[in-house]
C-alpha cells in the first residue's frame, strides 16, 4: 500500500473522534426555571441577565418545535438534556495557560489547535471553547492595546454590561423562533467581540468549538459588534468527538455592523456526521443573523458545511442601513445519511442595498440537501440589487438535491436575478482527469474543488487549506 492510500485510510474514519475524561459539573437534567437560575447563578450573572433568560423561557414555553423543514428527525425530549456542564477544573479560573488541565491541553493538541506558540506564529487569537465554558484566551494584550474586546461572553456580561445589554438580543430577540429562544434562555457561553470606532482588527479572530460531555445540548451565544468604520474577520471551526447519541447544538450568532463597518464571518463545520448507517451525529440547528445597522456597512458570511447529521441553518443579513452590502458564500457537502437544509435570508430595507448569494451543494451517498433562501426587497429599498446563484452536484441516484428559493420584490427600481442548476460530474470530465494519471477519487476531488472554487476563495488563507482538505475527505468512498 502506498503512502497516499494509507493516508486516505487514516482519514476515512472520523479524524477527530475521541473524547477526554474530565469530571463535569452538571446542572440537573431537564429544563425549568430552576435550571436557568442555576446557570445564571453559577455564572454570577447580574439580575438583568437572569431576567433576559426568564423572559425567553416564558416565550419558549408557548412555542412549538417547527416541522416545515425537509430533514425530519426523531422528537427531541428537551427535559432529557443537561443544559449546563463545565470542566470541574474551571471552577477557579486559571490565570495563564500553564495552569490549564493538562488533559485539556492534550485534547487541543490532538485537534491541532494552535493555542500557544502556533497561535503566535499564525497570528491567530484563539478563544477555545471546551464544552460550554471558554478555557483560555490568548493575544488579549495585543488586542486590548487597540481597544478591541475579545472574550467569552460570560466575562463580557461582567465587565462590559453596557455593551452586552445594548446589543444582546437586538438582532435575534428573545421572542424569535423555537431554537433561538431556547438558546436565549439557557445559553452557557460563547464569544464576545467589540471593535471600536475606526479600528481594523490586526488579526483573524477565531474560536474552536467542541462538544464533549455526552447528552449535553450545547448552546453557544456569539455577539460581534463592529463600531463605525471598523473591520473584523472572524473564524469559527468545529470538531466534535465520536458519540452515539444525537447531540443537539443550537447556537445563536448575532452580528452588528454600524456605519462603514465590515464583518466577515467564516465557518468550517465538521462535526461528527454519524456513522455510515446514519447512526448518531450532531444536530446543528444554528441561528445566525447579521444586522447592517449603519450606512455603507457590510456583512459577509462564508460557510463550509461538511459535518453534522443534520445541518439546519440560514445565516442571514438584514440590510437596514443605506448602501449596505450582504454576502453569503456557502459550500455544503452531505454524504452517507447526512441531511442539510441551509441557505440564507437577505432582507433589504435600506436604499441602494446590495446582496450576493453563491451556494454550492454537493450530495452523495444516501444524503439529502436543500438550499432554502429568501430574498426580500421592501418597497422602501430603492435601487437595490440581488444576485443569487445556487448550483447542486449529485453523486449517485440515492441522494437528493433541492432548491427552494423565495423571491419577493416590492420595489420597481430594484433588480433581482436568480439562477440555479443541478447536474452531475460528467463522464468526460472524469475520463479526462483519469487519462492524465489521477485515480477516480483524486479526479472527483479535483473536479469538486473546482466546482467550489468561488466559495473557497472567500475563506481566509488559514481556513482555505483546511477546507479544501475537508472537501476531499467528506466525499471519500462516494465514487466507484
Amino acid at each position, binding site marked *: 500500500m502506498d503512502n497516499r492510500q494509507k493516508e486516505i485510510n487514516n482519514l476515512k474514519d472520523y479524524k477527530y473522534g475521541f473524547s477526554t475524561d474530565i469530571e463535569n459539573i452538571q446542572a440537573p437534567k431537564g429544563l425549568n426555571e430552576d435550571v436557568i437560575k442555576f446557570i445564571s447563578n453559577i455564572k454570577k450573572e447580574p439580575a438583568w441577565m437572569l431576567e433576559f433568560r426568564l423572559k425567553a423561557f416564558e416565550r419558549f414555553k408557548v412555542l412549538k418545535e417547527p416541522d416545515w423543514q425537509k430533514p425530519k428527525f426523531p422528537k427531541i425530549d428537551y427535559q432529557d438534556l443537561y443544559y449546563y456542564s463545565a470542566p470541574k477544573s474551571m471552577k477557579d479560573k486559571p490565570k495563564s495557560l500553564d495552569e490549564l488541565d493538562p488533559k485539556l491541553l492534550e485534547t487541543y493538541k490532538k485537534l491541532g489547535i494552535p493555542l500557544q506558540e502556533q497561535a503566535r506564529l499564525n497570528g491567530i487569537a484563539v478563544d477555545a471553547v471546551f464544552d460550554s465554558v471558554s478555557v483560555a484566551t490568548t493575544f488579549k494584550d495585543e488586542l486590548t492595546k487597540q481597544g478591541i474586546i475579545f472574550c467569552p461572553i460570560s466575562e463580557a456580561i461582567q465587565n462590559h454590561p453596557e455593551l452586552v445589554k445594548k446589543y444582546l438580543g437586538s438582532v435575534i430577540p428573545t421572542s424569535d423562533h423555537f431554537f433561538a429562544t431556547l438558546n436565549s434562555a439557557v445559553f452557557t457561553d460563547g464569544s464576545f467581540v467589540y471593535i471600536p470606532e475606526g479600528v481594523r482588527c490586526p488579526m483573524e479572530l477565531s474560536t474552536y468549538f467542541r462538544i464533549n460531555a455526552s447528552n449535553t445540548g450545547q448552546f453557544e451565544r456569539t455577539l460581534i459588534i463592529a463600531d463605525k468604520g471598523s473591520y473584523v474577520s472572524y473564524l469559527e471551526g468545529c470538531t466534535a468527538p465520536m458519540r452515539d447519541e444525537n447531540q443537539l447544538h443550537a447556537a445563536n450568532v448575532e452580528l452588528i455592523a454600524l456605519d462603514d463597518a465590515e464583518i466577515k464571518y467564516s465557518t468550517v463545520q465538521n462535526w461528527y456526521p454519524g456513522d455510515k448507517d446514519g447512526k448518531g451525529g450532531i444536530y446543528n440547528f444554528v441561528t445566525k443573523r447579521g444586522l447592517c445597522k449603519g450606512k455603507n456597512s457590510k456583512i459577509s458570511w462564508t460557510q463550509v458545511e461538511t459535518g453534522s447529521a443534520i445541518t439546519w441553518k440560514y445565516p442571514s443579513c438584514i440590510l437596514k442601513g443605506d448602501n449596505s452590502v450582504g454576502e453569503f458564500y456557502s459550500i455544503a457537502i452531505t454524504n452517507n445519511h447526512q441531511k442539510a437544509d441551509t441557505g440564507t435570508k437577505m432582507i433589504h430595507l435600506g436604499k441602494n442595498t446590495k446582496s450576493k448569494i453563491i451556494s454550492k451543494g454537493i450530495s452523495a451517498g444516501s444524503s439529502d440537501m436543500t438550499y432554502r433562501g429568501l430574498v426580500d426587497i421592501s418597497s422602501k429599498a430603492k435601487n437595490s440589487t440581488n444576485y443569487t446563484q445556487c448550483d447542486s452536484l449529485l453523486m449517485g441516484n440515492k441522494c*437528493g*438535491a*433541492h432548491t427552494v428559493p423565495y423571491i419577493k420584490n416590492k420595489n420597481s*427600481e*430594484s433588480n433581482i436575478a436568480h439562477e*440555479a442548476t443541478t447536474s452531475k460530474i460528467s463522464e468526460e470530465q472524469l475520463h479526462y482527469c483519469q487519462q492524465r494519471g489521477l485515480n477516480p477519487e483524486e479526479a472527483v476531488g479535483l473536479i469538486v474543488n473546482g466546482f467550489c472554487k468561488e466559495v473557497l476563495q472567500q475563506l481566509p488563507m488559514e481556513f482555505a487549506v483546511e477546507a479544501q482538505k475537508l472537501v476531499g475527505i467528506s466525499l471519500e468512498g462516494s465514487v466507484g
Partner: protein
Amino acid sequence: MKEQLQKDFDNNIKNLSLSQKDIEIKKFCLDNFIDKGFPNRKEEDWKFSDLNQIIKNNIGELSFYNDQTSTSKVDTSVFVDGLEHNKIVFINGRIEKIDFEYEKKDQIEIIDQSETINEFKNSNSLSDLNNAFTNKCFKILVKKGYQLVKPLIIYHTTNSKIWSKNINLRLNFELDKDSSLRLIDLFNDTSEKNFLNIFYNFELKENAVLKNYKVDKFENKNIKYSFNNIDQDKNSISETFILSSGSNFSKNEINCNLNGVYASAFVNGVFSLNNDKHHEIRSVINHLTENTKSYQLIKSVLDENSKAVYQGKIFVNSDAQKTDGYQLSKSILLNKESEFNAKPELEIYADDVKCSHGSASGSLNEGSIFYLMSRGLSYQQSRELLINGFLLDVVEKITDSEIKNLIKNMIGIEE
C-alpha cells in the same frame, strides 16, 4: 359560513336525482370543506395569496346555491370571429351548449359522469368544495387516432344575474392513443364579485397531444381558481399557455405527471396586470420516469399596485434519469406599488439530470428607452415597444399558428 353552506347544499341536492351513496360522498366532501375552509396563507401553497382573506375583502358573504333549472340564452356576440371552432358554452356555471359541428361524430364521445367523484392528487380544500357542489360533469373522450380538425373553445360566460356566488365547474378529458386536441378557455364576464372554482382533468394516452390556452383578458371583478391535472403517457405532449390579466384575482394551478418515457410538458404564461389585481400561477411538474422533458416560461408586466406570484416546482423521481427540466420567470415592475413574488423550486432525486431555473425581476431598462427615444420615438411609444417585445417572447412559444395569431390580436401585440 357554515350554515350558509349547509343550507345551499341541501337546496342543491334537492334538485338532483342522486343515489343515497352519491349524496353521502358529496356530504363527506362538504364536511371536509367546512372543516378546512378556504385556503389561507398558513398553507405553504397559498403563502403569497391568502384566498380566505381575498374572498372576505372582495366578496364578503358568498352563497353556494345556483339555480340551474332554467336555461339562459346563448349570446352569440361573444363568439370568436374569424376562426372556425367547436364550442362548449357555460353560462353562469351551467352547460348550455356542446357543439362539435366540425368533427366526425363517432370519433368524439361525451360521457355524463355527474355521479363519479374524482379525487385529485395534490388537492386542497377547493377540490372538496368542487366535489360537493358540482352538478353536471362531462367527460370528453377523443378516440384513438382522431385529431380534431378545428380547435375547441370553451366559453366561460357569467352575466349580471349572479352576484356573490360560488360557481363550481368540472370537466374531464381523455385523449386516446395518437389523438390530439386544441382547447381554448375563454373567459367572458359581465358579472361581479363571484368566485369561480374550476377543475379540469386530462388523461393523455400514448402519442396524444394536448394544447390548452387559457385566456382571461376582459376586465372583471371576479375571483377565479383553476386547477388542471394532466396525466401523460409515453410520447405524449402537453402545452399550456396562460394569459392572466382580466380578473381581480386569479390563480391557475397546473399539476402535470409525466408517467411515460419521452413525455413532455410545456407551461408558458403571461401576466399583464394593473389596478390592484393579484394573480398567481403555480405549476408542479412531476418527472416520474426517465427521458421526460419540461419547459416553463413565465413573464409578467406589473402596473398600478398589482401583484403577481409564480410558484413553480420541478420534481424528479429517483427513476427519472435523463430528465430535462427548465424554468424561467421574468418580470417588469412598472410601478412603485407593484410586487412580484416567486418561488421556483427544484426537488431532485436522480443524478443524471439537467435541471435549471432562473428568475429575474426589475424595472424597464432605462438604457433601452434612451436608445429608442434617441431614434425619434416618444417615451410612451418606447415603453410600449419594449413591453410588447418582452411579452411577445412568450406568445411566440405557442406552437399553433392560428391560435397564436388569435391571441396576438386579443392582446393587441403586433410584430
